[in-house]
């Protein structure tokens, strides 16, 4: 989230698209109700199902799964055509005026530079025209046909209301009604907030779904303001934290990135990461990358990281491909290329696409280690549970370890919520039996491995032997010690420009502005710097006071970065520093400095210095044109899901995301609409959380058994009764469960044809207290978003037939 949960109450229009907050984030959703009651806000819900979020909406529109970009591109077209944009904001704070290279173009579904064989783009034309100093050229008058604004107009021109309706199945009048509501928020003092979740990410165009809405928000001037923003409602209690700390194939803590094979030397690595400003006088904050990186290496390798060994640059692994995501991992496993797999609090047998492939691949491992508080399906993949998990244990040679761990109630530590707050929590009781904390287990493995490498040698032991481990109790380090390590400290006395000592050696840093690139500071995660200072654990703060009831609560816990609660908040004020909406001011220029309720997301620069508000971007502006940052294009384009009932009516030859990576075996397992005519989509129920709560008795009672949800029209057509048994099948497998026939799903007319949606809740498996189920991933295809590889769980093809009840 760019903003906070409570800040939703400041919105004039709340849009929930790509999520179902009322059911998946109930206690956060009440801020939407607050906005409606206290701020007169209108709620717009766009969803294939009439969800509980939709039930309290002012306007609800159905949409076919996987067609969101068409809808939002049509919306952009409307805003530009009716000239309902926040002009001053767009001109000053976005790259609308910047001129794109002559060589850039788009034709028949493809941007310039496509290599069909490799399914990738040469992105060299996706760039600005540069002047002789290397700065991007500008046309403030928007006359140049190659300025971003004009290219965008041209790009979205095809998305007429008729076209949107044809692709999305949304009635035109509903679409236009929603366009009008969006347009009201182009007024400088009106804000629209976008709330979304996995309904947007789990598509082969997931990242572009989100990007399209971010562009809408820039055009409306809604990024950085109270009641605005792009608010990703994250699904798990610390999925934000694990992302921040970089537990992803290609990531390092604080959004630093792991080196690629091409980054042969440390200098090569730095060259591609120290982004130079693209406009005069801009901040381009990643220019500090070297400080963050060197301080990180000092945190993990201590005195072994020196200027002479390039801060132990070579000790980090390099990647030969963009990332080893989970789809790649299981493709490798299926091919016998992976021998060991460790699952720490993760249940891939239920969570990953194409369950049959997951089960088969796990059986090819030499060893599988599962660390979890619960008895997960993954740890028992080898056991025969009948149709829900058919297996022949004698034929599976995998050694399996099931290690019992603590849960939230049994440990200290910080979790990062959706609004980037690091909230410390405390242990209430010891774990059951011999269960141990993950920290204790990782420390136990580390010590054993380090000892073996010390004694016996082996493949490149240096990073292991030199890893910092100066914890008071090395066997079971105190979480506070890791928190302090992430915050960072001075390694020598740090002096300011006047030679005054600012921090003594060994003292905790106040924030990342104190980081140096000469090895005199260390910080394990630069964006957390400030969370555990000499004043103590800031994440443990519990002062709920909220000046002006703005929804900021600046002294409750601690938010990254720098305890800033609303990202890009410089953009909440006009170029002269006056708030666009004085009634909901966040920061403003008082004539000599920036003041307000939040920590300014800016430098100390005066408005007259023309420093752009988007300081992480090298032109200082929000990007309507994404340069080379996305793999499938600098503008979003509608591509059909890989399993779709419809042709791509915009460009039939380029039906799906042309830059998505698809493994040959997975492609063979995609079904066609002729055989599987209905659109499947997965979702959560409000009474269950993934595959965890079925272990809790109350939740197992509330939603005891697997079902699919279908509309009355489809039920009638297929002779399916309420609570009758059905077989839901796809090219990859089938499940037998009950049908729940509702008025919430109605057929949509897509390209002239009726299209039915089958809803597949995802909560059941074969362990826990609920009844046995197959799991939604029995049906989902193994293909991911082209940028992130998040699997396409929200749009796939199935068939459904009435069957007799299974024999008990």
């Amino acid at each position, binding site marked *: 989230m760019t903003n906070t949960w409570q800040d939703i109450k400041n919105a004039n229009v709340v849009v929930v698209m790509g999520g179902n907050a009322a059911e998946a984030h109930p206690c956060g959703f009440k801020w939407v109700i607050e906005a409606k009651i206290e701020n007169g806000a209108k709620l717009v819900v766009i969803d294939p199902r009439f969800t509980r979020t939709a039930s309290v909406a002012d306007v609800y529109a159905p949409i076919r799964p996987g067609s969101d970009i068409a809808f939002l591109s049509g919306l952009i077209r409307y805003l530009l055509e009716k000239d309902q944009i926040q002009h001053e904001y767009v001109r000053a704070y976005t790259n609308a005026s910047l001129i794109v290279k002559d060589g850039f173009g788009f034709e028949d579904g493809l941007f310039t530079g496509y290599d069909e064989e490799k399914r990738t783009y040469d992105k060299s034309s996706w760039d600005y025209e540069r002047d002789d100093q290397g700065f991007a050229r500008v046309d403030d008058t928007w006359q140049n046909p190659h300025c971003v604004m004009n290219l965008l107009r041209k790009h979205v021109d095809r998305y007429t209301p008729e076209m949107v309706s044809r692709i999305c199945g949304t009635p035109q009048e509903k679409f236009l009604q929603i366009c009008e509501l969006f347009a009201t928020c182009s007024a400088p003092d009106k804000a629209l907030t976008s709330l979304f979740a996995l309904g947007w990410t789990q598509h082969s165009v997931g990242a572009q779904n989100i990007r399209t809405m971010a562009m809408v928000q820039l055009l409306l001037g809604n990024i950085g303001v109270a009641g605005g923003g792009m608010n990703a409602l994250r699904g798990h209690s610390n999925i934000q934290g*694990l992302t921040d700390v970089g537990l992803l194939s290609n990531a390092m803590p604080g959004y630093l990135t792991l080196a690629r094979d091409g980054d042969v030397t440390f200098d090569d690595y730095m060259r591609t990461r120290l982004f130079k400003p693209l406009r005069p006088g801009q901040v381009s904050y990643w220019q500090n990358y070297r400080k963050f990186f060197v301080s990180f290496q000092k945190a993990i390798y201590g005195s072994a990281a020196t200027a002479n060994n390039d801060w132990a640059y070579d000790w980090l692994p390099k990647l030969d491909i963009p990332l080893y995501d989970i789809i790649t991992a299981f493709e490798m496993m299926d091919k016998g290329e992976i021998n060991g797999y460790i699952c720490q609090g*993760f249940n891939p047998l239920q969570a990953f696409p194409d369950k049959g492939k997951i089960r088969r691949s796990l059986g090819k491992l030499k060893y599988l280690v599962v660390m979890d508080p619960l008895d997960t399906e993954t740890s028992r993949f080898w056991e025969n549970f009948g149709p829900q998990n058919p297996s022949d244990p004698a034929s599976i040679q995998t*050694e399996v370890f099931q290690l019992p761990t603590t*849960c939230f109630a049994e440990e200290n530590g910080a979790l990062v919520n959706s609004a980037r707050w690091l909230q410390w929590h405390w242990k209430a009781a010891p774990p059951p039996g011999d269960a141990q904390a993950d920290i204790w287990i990782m420390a136990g493995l580390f010590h054993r491995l380090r000892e073996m490498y010390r004694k016996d040698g082996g*493949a490149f032991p240096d990073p292991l032997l030199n890893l910092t481990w100066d914890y008071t109790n090395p066997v079971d380090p105190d979480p506070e010690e890791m*928190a302090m390590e992430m915050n960072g400290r001075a390694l020598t006395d740090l002096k300011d420009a006047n030679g005054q000592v600012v921090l003594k050696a060994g003292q905790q840093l106040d924030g990342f502005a104190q980081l140096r690139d000469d090895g005199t500071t260390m910080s394990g995660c630069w964006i957390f710097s400030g969370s555990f200072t000499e004043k103590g654990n800031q994440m443990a703060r519990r002062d709920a006071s909220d000046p002006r009831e703005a929804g900021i609560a600046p002294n409750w816990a601690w938010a990254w970065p720098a305890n800033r609660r609303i990202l890009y908040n410089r953009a909440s004020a006009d170029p002269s520093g006056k708030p666009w909406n004085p009634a909901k001011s966040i920061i403003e220029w008082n004539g000599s400095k920036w003041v307000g309720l939040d920590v300014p997301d800016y430098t100390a620069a005066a408005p007259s210095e023309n420093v752009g508000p988007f300081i992480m971007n090298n032109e200082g502006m929000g990007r309507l044109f994404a340069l080379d940052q996305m793999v499938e294009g600098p503008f979003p384009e509608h591509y059909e899901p890989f399993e779709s009932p419809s042709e791509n009516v915009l460009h039939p030859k380029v039906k799906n995301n042309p830059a998505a990576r698809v493994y040959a075996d997975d492609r063979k397992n995609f079904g066609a609409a002729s055989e599987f005519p209905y659109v499947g989509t997965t979702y959560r129920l409000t009474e269950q*959380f993934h595959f965890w709560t079925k272990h809790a008795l109350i939740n197992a009672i*509330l939603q005891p058994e697997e079902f699919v949800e279908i509309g009355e029209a489809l039920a009638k057509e297929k002779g399916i009764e309420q609570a009758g048994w059905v077989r839901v099948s796809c090219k990859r497998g089938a499940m037998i469960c009950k049908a729940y026939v509702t008025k919430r799903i109605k057929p949509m007319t897509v390209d002239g044809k009726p299209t039915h949606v089958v809803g597949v809740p995802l909560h059941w498996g074969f362990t826990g*207290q609920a009844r046995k189920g197959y799991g939604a991933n029995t049906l989902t295809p193994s293909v991911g978003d082209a940028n992130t590889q998040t699997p396409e769980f929200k749009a796939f093809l199935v068939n459904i037939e009435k069957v007799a009840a299974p024999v008990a």
Partner: protein
Amino acid sequence: MQLSRRGFIKITAAGLAASSLGALGFGGAGEALAASVRPFKLTAASETRNTCTYCSVACGILIYSLGDRAKNAVSDIIHIEGDPDHPVNRGTLCPKGSALLDIVHAPTRLKVPKYRAPGASEFKEVSWEFALDRIATLMKEDRDKNFIAQNKDGTTVNRWLSTGMLAASASSNETSYLTWKVARALGMVVFDNQARV
């Protein structure tokens, strides 16, 4: 002043007995009522601030456990409710958060390390020593055999592809940081978490 509900009724009854109503014979009723009410369980419990383990609204919760945290007292969680001071949830919890006590005490919580040998049809209980020794040995064998120090162009790459790891989505930052250190020091790159799913 700490006052239990039973204590409150007793005091009330005493006040009643001293009043004119007491003279009318209602005093004994108060005594009987006080005797019939169980003491309010949470007054004797320890209160711990924590965060709901499910979605990332991250509702504040209060965990109540028996035991006063003295060295030899074993705490046992008896109740969990929303934290009324929390600025986001303000004491509310959803159907999942309201049932947190049931997940803490789920019968399928794991209590001992278990091991399943190749081809075996069941788990058997093992010691932590056995489990960690065996896992570390398997990891080292695989790493030593398959570690890639240099690619074919001679560039130092120091990666280990043949063992992968998935990190959690509800573990703390501190757990994840320590996990990152260990996994990357081994050269792991087949390494991901729930954020990508």
